[in-house]
C-alpha cells in the first residue's frame, strides 16, 4: 500500500523532472525507444536509491536545520532573504493538524540538499570566483542544468548506462553519451551554452580561464585523493582509538599515521601524525584501564587502583563527549569572514582547527598517560602518593584536573583511615593501607600488633599525623582486645559529632582536606586516648601497680624487707639446689604478715611471688633468690618481659646491697662496745690480750669505713635514685595523654634507675668493682665473726675460774697448763686473723679508691653527689695522691707493730 503510493509518486517525479523527453520523442521516432528506456531506467534507479540505506548523518533536528539554512543565506550576504526564510519557516512550522506537513525536518533537509547540489553545480560550472546569484530560479534551472557529477565522490551512484565505460577517476568521463567524447574545452563551453539560458556567457576568453581554474582544482583534488574532510573524520576516529579509512595505527612507528599508499602532502601527514598523538595516548590509557579492570586479578591493583581506573574512565567519558561534538561539527560548513562559503563543501573542522580543539584534551590525555605509566607498578597509598607528586605543578589546568582525579583515587584510602580511626578495623583486603596488622598475642598487641608501612604512606599525609592515626586505631584495638571495653565506641561517636559540628556540615573526608582529616584524627585520638588512659588508671590501677613494684621489687617497703631478710637469711646461706621455692613462698607470706605490707591490697599481694633463678653448682641461696611481680594482662603492655627482667636486675642489686648492709649491722651487733670487749681490754700486761685489742680495733676501723661506704651508697640509691625517679615518673604520669606517652614515661623511669644505680652498659666496670667490694665486705664479716667467736671463747675461758667455780674440780688440774696453751693458741690465731684482716683492708681500700676514682668518669651528673658523699672530707682523694709516693702497705703497717 505504502510502497505503491511511493512508487506512484516517484513515477510522477520522474515525469516532472524529465519533461524534455516528450519533445525528444516527438522529434524523432527513433528516440522513442530510447526515451522509454531512459524513463523506465530512471524510475528503477530512483526506486533503488530510495530503497538503499543512504541516510543523513545528522540527527533529525528541524530547528538546527533551519538555522543552518539561515546561516548559509546570511553567509551568502542575503540577510533579507534569511529573514524572509525565517518568517516562512515559522509559519510553516506553526501549521498543524490534518493536511499540514508532519515531517518538516525531512522537507527542510531535502530542500537544503537540493539547493546545495544546485549551488555546487553552479559553482563548478561557472568557476570558483563566480558568486552565487539568485538568477537560477526553479523552473529556469530545471531543464538546463549541466550534468557534471562528482563521480569520484559517488562512484556507486552513477547511472548505469549501457554504453558507459567502467568508471574512471576523472570526473570528465561522466560526460558521455552515445560514445561522443568532445574535447574538454569544447564540452565545457558547450555546457555553458546551455546554462539556464540566463547566464550564457558572452566572453569566451573569460570562460576559458574559469574552466582552466576549475580543471586545476579538480586535478589537484585528484592528486590528493583524499579530501581534508575525510582526513578530519579519520583523525577524529583515530583519536578514539579506531582505525579510520586512511589513518591507521602503525605498529612499527608506534602511532597513527596516514596510510602510506594514500598520497597526501608531507605537511598534512605530519599534522595528522601530531594530532593523532591524542589517539595514541588514549589507547594507552584505555588499555591500562581494561587490563587492570578486566584481565588482572583484583588483588593486583587493589581498591585504590580501581578508584584510579574509575576516575580515568570518567575522564575518558568527558573526552568521548568532546569527540562526539567534534564529529557532528565535521558536517557543518565552514564560515568565512569574507562572507563566502568554502568551496568544495569545506567543513567547519579542518585539520588545523582540530589541532586547536584537541590542544586541551591532549594535555589532559598526556597527563593521564604519564600517570598510567607511573602507577603501573604502584598500589595503594604509594600510588596515591605518586599522583600527589604530580600535583605539584604550576599549571592550574593540570592542578585542577589532578585534584579531581585525586579526590576519586583517595576515596578508598580516606575510607580506610576513617574506619581505622573510628572503628579500629583494618579494612584493607589488598594490603594498601599504611597501617599493617600482624597477628600477635594480646600482650604484644600494642607494641608489635600494628606497624606503619612507610611505603604505603601517601606523601600528603605527614608522618606525625600518620603516627597519630596509627595510635588511635591501636588504642581502639587495645581497648577491645586487651581490656574488653566498649566505651571507645561512644568516644569515637562523640569525636565524629564534634568534628561535624565544627566543620559546618562538611564532615566528609576527601583529598585536599587534610585539615578536616587532621581535626577528625586529633579529636578521635584525644577522646579515645583519654578513655584508654582512664581505663588503665582506674580499672587496672596502673599507679598502684607501679607503687607496689617500687615497694616490693625496689625495696621501698623497708620493714617488709627487713623481716624478709631476717627470715629468709639463714636459708639462703644454704646451697641453691637444696632450697625449696614453696618454703620460701611461705617465708615471704610470713614476712608480709609481719610487716605493714599486710595492709596492702590483697590483689597486689597476690601478685608477689618468690622466684628462683636458674642456678649452677656452688650457687648459694643468695645468688638465686628474687622476688617477682606478676603484672597481668593489659598491663603487660607496659610491664613487658624485658621490663620485668630489668626490674629483676635492679632487685638483685638492691637485694645484694641490702644483704651487705644487713651483714654489717649484724657485725656491729657483735662488735659494739660491750662488757666482753671491755673486760678483754681491761686485762693488761698480757701480750696476747694487747694483741687482741689491736686486732679488734683494726676491725672496728675497717667496719666503720665499710659502713660509711655502704650507708652512703644505700642512701644514694634510695633517695637520689629511686625516689627522685619516682617523683619524676609521677609527674609524667599525670600529664601523659596516651598509652605511648605512659610507656615512654615508664621506660624513662626505669632507664634512669638502671643508669644511675650503676647497672647500665657504661658502668659495667664500676658495677664489677662494686660487687667485689660487696664480696669483700662479706668476707670481712666472716672474719669478724670468727674473731669475735674466738674472743668470746677466750673470755669464757678466762672467766671460767671466777664465774664457774663449780666446775673447778674438772679444770683445776690443768689450769695453769691450759692458760699458757690458750694464750699461745690465741696468739697464733690472732696473728692469722690479723694478717687476713690486713689483706682485706688492703684490698678493700685499693678497690674503694679505684671505685671512687672511676666515679667521676661516669657521665651521669647524679653520680657526682655519690662521689661527693663518699669522699666528703677528701680523705680518699688525698690518700690517692699520697699513694703514688708512699706504698699503701707501708702506711697501714704501723698498726701491726
Amino acid at each position, binding site marked *: 500500500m*505504502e510502497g505503491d503510493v511511493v512508487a506512484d509518486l516517484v513515477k510522477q517525479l520522474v515525469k516532472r523532472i*524529465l519533461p524534455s523527453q516528450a519533445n525528444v520523442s516527438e522529434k524523432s521516432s527513433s*528516440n522513442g525507444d530510447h526515451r522509454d528506456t531512459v524513463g523506465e531506467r530512471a524510475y528503477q534507479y530512483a526506486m533503488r536509491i530510495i530503497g538503499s540505506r543512504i541516510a543523513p548523518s545528522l540527527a533529525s533536528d528541524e530547528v538546527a536545520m533551519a538555522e543552518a539554512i539561515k546561516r548559509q543565506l546570511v553567509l551568502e550576504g542575503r540577510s533579507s532573504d534569511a529573514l524572509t526564510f525565517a518568517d516562512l519557516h515559522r509559519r*510553516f512550522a506553526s501549521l498543524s493538524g490534518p*493536511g499540514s506537513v508532519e515531517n518538516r525536518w525531512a522537507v527542510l533537509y531535502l530542500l537544503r540538499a537540493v539547493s546545495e547540489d544546485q549551488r555546487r553545480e553552479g559553482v563548478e560550472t561557472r568557476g570558483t570566483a563566480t558568486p552565487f546569484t539568485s538568477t537560477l530560479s526553479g523552473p529556469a534551472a*530545471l531543464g538546463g542544468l*549541466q550534468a557534471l557529477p562528482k563521480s569520484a565522490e559517488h562512484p556507486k551512484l552513477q547511472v548505469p548506462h549501457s554504453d558507459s565505460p567502467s568508471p574512471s577517476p576523472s570526473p570528465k568521463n561522466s560526460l558521455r553519451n552515445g560514445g561522443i567524447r568532445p574535447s574538454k574545452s569544447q564540452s565545457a563551453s558547450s555546457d555553458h551554452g546551455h546554462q539556464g539560458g540566463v547566464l550564457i556567457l558572452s566572453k569566451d576568453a573569460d570562460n576559458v580561464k574559469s574552466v582552466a581554474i576549475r580543471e586545476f582544482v579538480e586535478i589537484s583534488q585528484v592528486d590528493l585523493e583524499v579530501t581534508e574532510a575525510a582526513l578530519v573524520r579519520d583523525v577524529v576516529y583515530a583519536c578514539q582509538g579506531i582505525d579510520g579509512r586512511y589513518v591507521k595505527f602503525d605498529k612499527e612507528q608506534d602511532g597513527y599515521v596516514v596510510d602510506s599508499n594514500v598520497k597526501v602532502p608531507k605537511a598534512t601527514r605530519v599534522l595528522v601524525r601530531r594530532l593523532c598523538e591524542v589517539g595514541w595516548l588514549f589507547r594507552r590509557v584505555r588499555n591500562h584501564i581494561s587490563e587492570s579492570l578486566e584481565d588482572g586479578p583484583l588483588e593486583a591493583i587493589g581498591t585504590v587502583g580501581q578508584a584510579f581506573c574509575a576516575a580515568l574512565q570518567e575522564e575518558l567519558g568527558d573526552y568521548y563527549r568532546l569527540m562526539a561534538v567534534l564529529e557532528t561539527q565535521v558536517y557543518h560548513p565552514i564560515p568565512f569572514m569574507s562572507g563566502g562559503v568554502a568551496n568544495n563543501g569545506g567543513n567547519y573542522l579542518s585539520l588545523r582547527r582540530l589541532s586547536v580543539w584537541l590542544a586541551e584534551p591532549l594535555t589532559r590525555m598526556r597527563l593521564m598517560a604519564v600517570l598510567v605509566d607511573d602507577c603501573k607498578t604502584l598500589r595503594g597509598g604509594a600510588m596515591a602518593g605518586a599522583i600527589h607528586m604530580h600535583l605539584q605543578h604550576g599549571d592550574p589546568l593540570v592542578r585542577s584536573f589532578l585534584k579531581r582525579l585525586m579526590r576519586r583515587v583517595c576515596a578508598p584510602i580516606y575510607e580506610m583511615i576513617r574506619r581505622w580511626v573510628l572503628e579500629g578495623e583494618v579494612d584493607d583486603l589488598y594490603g594498601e593501607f599504611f597501617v599493617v596488622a600482624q597477628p600477635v598475642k594480646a600482650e604484644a598487641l600494642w607494641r608489635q600488633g600494628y606497624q606503619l608501612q612507610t611505603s604505603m604512606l601517601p606523601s600528603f599525609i605527614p608522618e606525625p599525623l600518620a603516627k597519630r592515626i596509627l595510635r588511635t586505631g591501636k588504642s581502639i584495638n587495645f581497648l577491645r582486645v586487651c581490656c574488653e571495653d566498649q566505651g571507645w565506641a561512644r568516644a569515637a561517636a562523640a569525636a565524629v559529632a564534634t568534628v561535624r559540628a565544627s566543620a559546618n556540615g562538611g564532615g566528609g573526608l576527601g583529598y585536599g582536606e587534610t585539615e578536616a582529616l587532621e581535626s577528625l584524627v586529633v579529636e578521635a585520638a584525644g577522646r579515645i586516648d583519654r578513655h584508654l588512659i582512664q581505663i588503665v588508671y582506674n580499672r587496672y590501677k596502673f599507679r598502684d601497680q607501679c607503687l607496689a613494684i617500687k615497694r616490693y621489687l625496689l625495696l621501698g617497703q623497708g620493714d617488709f624487707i627487713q623481716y624478709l631478710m631476717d627470715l629468709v637469711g639463714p636459708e639462703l646461706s644454704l646451697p641453691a639446689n637444696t632450697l625449696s621455692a614453696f618454703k620460701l613462698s611461705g617465708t615471704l607470706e610470713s614476712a608480709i604478715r609481719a610487716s605493714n605490707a599486710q595492709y596492702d591490697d590483697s590483689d597486689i599481694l597476690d601478685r608477689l611471688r618468690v622466684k628462683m633463678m636458674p642456678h649452677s653448682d656452688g650457687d648459694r641461696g643468695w645468688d638465686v633468690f628474687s622476688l617477682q611481680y606478676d603484672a597481668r594482662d593489659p598491663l603487660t603492655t607496659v610491664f613487658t618481659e624485658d621490663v620485668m627482667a630489668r626490674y629483676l636486675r635492679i632487685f638483685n642489686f638492691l637485694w645484694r646491697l641490702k644483704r651487705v648492709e644487713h651483714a654489717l649491722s649484724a657485725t656491729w651487733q657483735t662488735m659494739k662496745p660491750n662488757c666482753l670487749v671491755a673486760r678483754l681490754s681491761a686485762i693488761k700486761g698480757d701480750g696476747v690480750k694487747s694483741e687482741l685489742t689491736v686486732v679488734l680495733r683494726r676491725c672496728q676501723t675497717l667496719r666503720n669505713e665499710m659502713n660509711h661506704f655502704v650507708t652512703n651508697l644505700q642512701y644514694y640509691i634510695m633517695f637520689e635514685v629511686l625516689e627522685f625517679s619516682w617523683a619524676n615518673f609521677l609527674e609524667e604520669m599525670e600529664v601523659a595523654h596516651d598509652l605511648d606517652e605512659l610507656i615512654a614515661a615508664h621506660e624513662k623511669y626505669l632507664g634512669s634507675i638502671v643508669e644511675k644505680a650503676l647497672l647500665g652498659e657504661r658502668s659495667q666496670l664500676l658495677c664489677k668493682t662494686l660487687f667485689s667490694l660487696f664480696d669483700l665486705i662479706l668476707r670481712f664479716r666472716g672474719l669478724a665473726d670468727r674473731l669475735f667467736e674466738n674472743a668470746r671463747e677466750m673470755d669464757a675461758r678466762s672467766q671460767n675460774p671466777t664465774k664457774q667455780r663449780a666446775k673447778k674440780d674438772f679444770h683445776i688440774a690443768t689450769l695453769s697448763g691450759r692458760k699458757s696453751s690458750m694464750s699461745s693458741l690465741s696468739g697464733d690465731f690472732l696473728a692469722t686473723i690479723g694478717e687476713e684482716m690486713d689483706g682485706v683492708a688492703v684490698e678493700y681500700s685499693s678497690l674503694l679508691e679505684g671505685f671512687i676514682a672511676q666515679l667521676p668518669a661516669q657521665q651521669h651528673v647524679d653520680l657526682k653527689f655519690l662521689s661527693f658523699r663518699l669522699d666528703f672530707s677528701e680523705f680518699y682523694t688525698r690518700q690517692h695522691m699520697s699513694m703514688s709516693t708512699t706504698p699503701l702497705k707501708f702506711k697501714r703497717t704501723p698498726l701491726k707493730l
Partner: protein
Amino acid sequence: MDGAGVERAREALNLAHAMASIINSGLDRQTLSILIGLCEHGVNPEALATVVKELRREAAAIESTSKSKD
C-alpha cells in the same frame, strides 16, 4: 480530507515553495508537492535529494545529447 485540511495543505505547500525558491533549490510547485508527499511517506530525504539530483543530471544529459545531435 475536509476543506480546512485542504486549505492547510495548500498553505503548507505555498510556504514550502516560497522557502524552496528563496534558497534556490530549483524545484517547482508540483515537484515540491510530490517530494513532500514522499517525505510524508517516510522516504529518506537524503535519498530523495540524490534522486532529484540524478534525475536532473539525466535530463541535462539527454538534452545535451539532443542538442549535440541538432
